[in-house]
Every structure is written in structure tokens, then in C-alpha cells.
């Protein structure tokens, strides 16, 4: 460790600390108050600096993501090894898998990409297929960075999906020319208006809701999808009298009264894992299992218009 000489005294240091503390508070205030790129006033200078930095770091993050992908596969395999049934199947199929591994991977990749490219809803506009570059490492957030940006028509507050109708999140204000930050549905700051539909009424693969399967005398639950302060991912503000059962599907409602929401209607979010309530509760406690594990995301698409 190199040791330099101490020149400035404690008084000079203290004055500097006080001055720089004030500057830090000013930076904080400006950052919070300036345009966060989602409003019409555009990006403020500090947000612009962050977008520029994200753009500069994009190649490094993409490289790192590529380098980290074998570790993800290894992690998946390690997790699978703990499952007895899977282990048995693995033993039986080891030889066949060894021969067909590469071909199988390519076929799966091809099918997934084709499904994503062809599975477009009529009347909707999409940005090009985007690859997840990196997770965002900030505390308390659950976000990812994808490799499409304003040049591809992506703007803040746009829905992000997998397949043709599985909602995984929305873009935040951090959209640069070639990158966009996506707030995943499991992020604590994410919220979406949703309704609950029985499995018979909704086809998750197409996103089509069949109203004829709805029972006339039953009110289906509507509420806000968000990660609760207690940490569970669920639907809040669903009336105790409304129908919501385990296994029901949760889809975006698209509207709240006469007001259009951020997300188009009929995007599949997940399945109800449990429903509970006590006599003291005003609303049902509904826990939802997301349709897609955020850790498994590789390619996503941004809906730019509908």
C-alpha cells in the first residue's frame, strides 16, 4: 500500500465534506425532480448521462452476458440433478441426449424464435425481437436490460412480452438508442390492472377470451397486480364476493372504468396459486405464480402500438 503525505488538515476536509454533502443533496433533488424520460418534458441532464453510460457499457454487458450463459446452463442442470425423477430420466436418456443434444438445442431455439416471430396479434405493432443483455443490479429492483431502444421504436412505458401474449414487464424511462431497461412484473414498483378468468374461458396460447364460457351470475375478480410489501406477488383489491379460485388465470384488463391503462387487454400474467381471506379482511389475498420465471428470460418483444 503506498503512503502519500497528508497535506490538508481536518478543518479543510470537514468544510469539503459539508460542501459536497450539499452538492449530493442537490444532485439527488435534481435527479428526482427532472424529467425521467417517461414524461413529455423529455430526459433531464442526469438521466441523459445515465442513458449515455448505458449505451457505452452495452458492448461490455453483452459480452459478459454471453460469457455468463454457460454458467446459467450449469446452474439449471445442477438444480435438475436434485430432482429424483429427472435424474432417473436423465440416466435412461443419457446416450440419446449426448447424440441429439446439439440438434435438439438448435430445434428448440428455432421453434421459439419462429413462435415469437409468427405469433403476432393482429393490429399490434412490435419492436424487433430483443435479447436480454443483463440484469440490473440495483437493490430492491427486479429489472433487465434489453438490446432494443429508441431506434427500434421503443419508448418508455411500453409492454414487454414473451411469445405473443405473456406479459413479463414494461419499459422504464431508461431507454437509450440501442438499449431499454425493463421493469419485470415481479418488481416492487410494477403494477397492472388485471382481471381473473377461469381456465375454460381463456386460451393462454392465443390470448383469446371466450365470453360464452363465463357464468352469468358470477362476478369475476378484478384488481391490481403487484408485489405486495409483504413480498408476495399477487392481485390486490379483489372483492371478497368476486370469484377467484386456485388455478384461475390472471390477464390484463386493459381498462379501468373508462380509463385506458398501460397494457392492452388479454395479456397473460400468471396463474392463481392460492386464495385466502379472514373475517377482518376487506379484500381477498391472492397469490399469483408468474407465467414466466424472470430468471429464464432470453428473448422478449416490446409492443410498440395496439
Amino acid at each position, binding site marked *: *500500500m503506498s503512503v502519500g503525505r497528508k497535506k490538508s488538515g481536518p478543518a479543510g*476536509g470537514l468544510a469539503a465534506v459539508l460542501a459536497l454533502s450539499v452538492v449530493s443533496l442537490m*444532485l439527488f433533488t435534481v435527479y428526482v425532480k427532472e424529467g425521467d424520460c417517461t414524461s413529455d418534458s423529455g430526459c433531464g441532464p442526469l438521466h441523459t448521462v*445515465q442513458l449515455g453510460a448505458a449505451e457505452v457499457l452495452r458492448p461490455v454487458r453483452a459480452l459478459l452476458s454471453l460469457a455468463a450463459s454457460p454458467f446459467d446452463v450449469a446452474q439449471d442442470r445442477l438444480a435438475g440433478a436434485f430432482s429424483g425423477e429427472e435424474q432417473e430420466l436423465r440416466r435412461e436418456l443419457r446416450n440419446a441426449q449426448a447424440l441429439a443434444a446439439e440438434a435438439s438445442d438448435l430445434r428448440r431455439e428455432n421453434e421459439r424464435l419462429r413462435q415469437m416471430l409468427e405469433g403476432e396479434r393482429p393490429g399490434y405493432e412490435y419492436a424487433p425481437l430483443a435479447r436480454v443483455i443483463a*440484469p440490473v*443490479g440495483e437493490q430492491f429492483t427486479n429489472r433487465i436490460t434489453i438490446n432494443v431502444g429508441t431506434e427500434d421504436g421503443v419508448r418508455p412505458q411500453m409492454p414487454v412480452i414473451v411469445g405473443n401474449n405473456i406479459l413479463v414487464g414494461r419499459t422504464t424511462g431508461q431507454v437509450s438508442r440501442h438499449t431499454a431497461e425493463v421493469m419485470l412484473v415481479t418488481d*416492487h414498483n410494477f403494477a397492472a390492472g388485471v382481471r381473473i378468468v377461469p381456465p375454460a374461458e381463456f386460451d393462454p396460447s392465443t390470448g383469446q377470451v371466450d365470453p360464452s364460457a363465463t357464468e352469468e351470475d358470477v362476478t369475476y375478480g378484478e384488481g391490481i397486480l403487484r408485489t405486495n410489501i409483504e413480498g408476495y406477488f399477487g392481485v390486490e383489491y379483489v372483492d371478497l364476493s368476486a370469484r377467484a379460485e386456485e388455478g384461475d388465470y390472471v390477464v390484463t384488463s386493459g381498462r379501468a372504468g373508462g380509463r385506458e391503462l398501460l397494457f392492452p387487454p388479454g395479456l397473460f400474467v400468471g396463474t392463481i396459486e392460492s386464495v385466502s381471506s379472514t373475517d377482518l379482511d376487506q379484500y381477498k389475498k391472492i397469490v399469483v405464480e408468474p407465467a414466466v420465471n424472470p430468471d429464464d428470460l432470453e428473448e422478449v418483444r416490446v409492443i410498440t402500438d395496439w
Partner: protein
Amino acid sequence: MEQTSVLRASLVVALGALLEAVLSPYLTLGPVSPKFTLLAIVYAVYPLGDLQAVLLGFFGGVLYDALGGGIFGVGAMGGLIAALLAARAGAVRRKGMEGLLMAQVAALSVAAYDIINLAGRGLAGLYAPPLGGYLFAGVLPDALLNGALAYAFAAWMARRARRRKGRGWEAER
């Protein structure tokens, strides 16, 4: 000589900020993650004077705010506190105790940063967990992890320095 020391310290802090911005997404486990920027600040400003230290800490924090995408001002304040603590610890250091002192300073700095970050998120209207639970489940393990990292790094640097000194003595013979 002193200019070289400040320049080297600046490079170390810049490298720490860059490392954290690029690597920390992969190393974050809940509220716990290595805070390379703060660790670099603590290590780099340790031998510097107060004024140089706080300036370097502040600008290192600003750099991390810009690269990391968090709330601007939080990293700057965290860097400032880390630099102040490290500079004060550097002024009273005893030989052979550097590692322990650096570990304590790093742990305190990270704890301060976590609390500032929590307060900042609350003030900005973003999600922030309840303070009581977060102190035990978030701040404490984060501070311990980063303290341990700082200690390990200081020990490694000390061993390196000893080896270099040993080689010098052999060369003199």
C-alpha cells in the same frame, strides 16, 4: 510522488465503479452485493489527506451513480462518507492493523450507503422495505460481506508488499 499517488487512487476508484456497474448484476443476492466502488474508495483514499480523500470519494460515487443507473446523489453521498471514514482511519492507523481497520471502515461505509439508499428511495417515492427488518436482513449481511472482502483484499495486498520487500532485500545481498 504525491501526484502519482492521487492519480493511482483515481484509477483504482474508477476501476471499482466500472467493475461494480458491469459485474454487480451477476453477483447480487437479494440485498447483498459486493460494493466494489466503496471498497476501492476505502482502499485508495486510505493514504491520502482529508481533502483529496473526500473529493475522490465524492467523484467516485458520482461516477458510480452515472454508470450504475441508481438514484443520483446516493452513490456520491456514500462515496463521501466512505472516503471520510477511510481518511480518518488512515490518519490513526497502526502498523499491522491496516487490514482490520479497512474491514471496519468498509463495513461501516457499506452500512451507511445502504441506509442512505433506503432513505433516498423512500424520498423518491420508490419501493423501500421497512427499516427494522432491512437493518438485520439487508444492511448487516451486506456490511459483513463487504467488510470480509476488504479484509481479504488488504491481507492479500500486505502479503504482496512483504514479498516484494523480501525480494528487494535478497537483491541487495
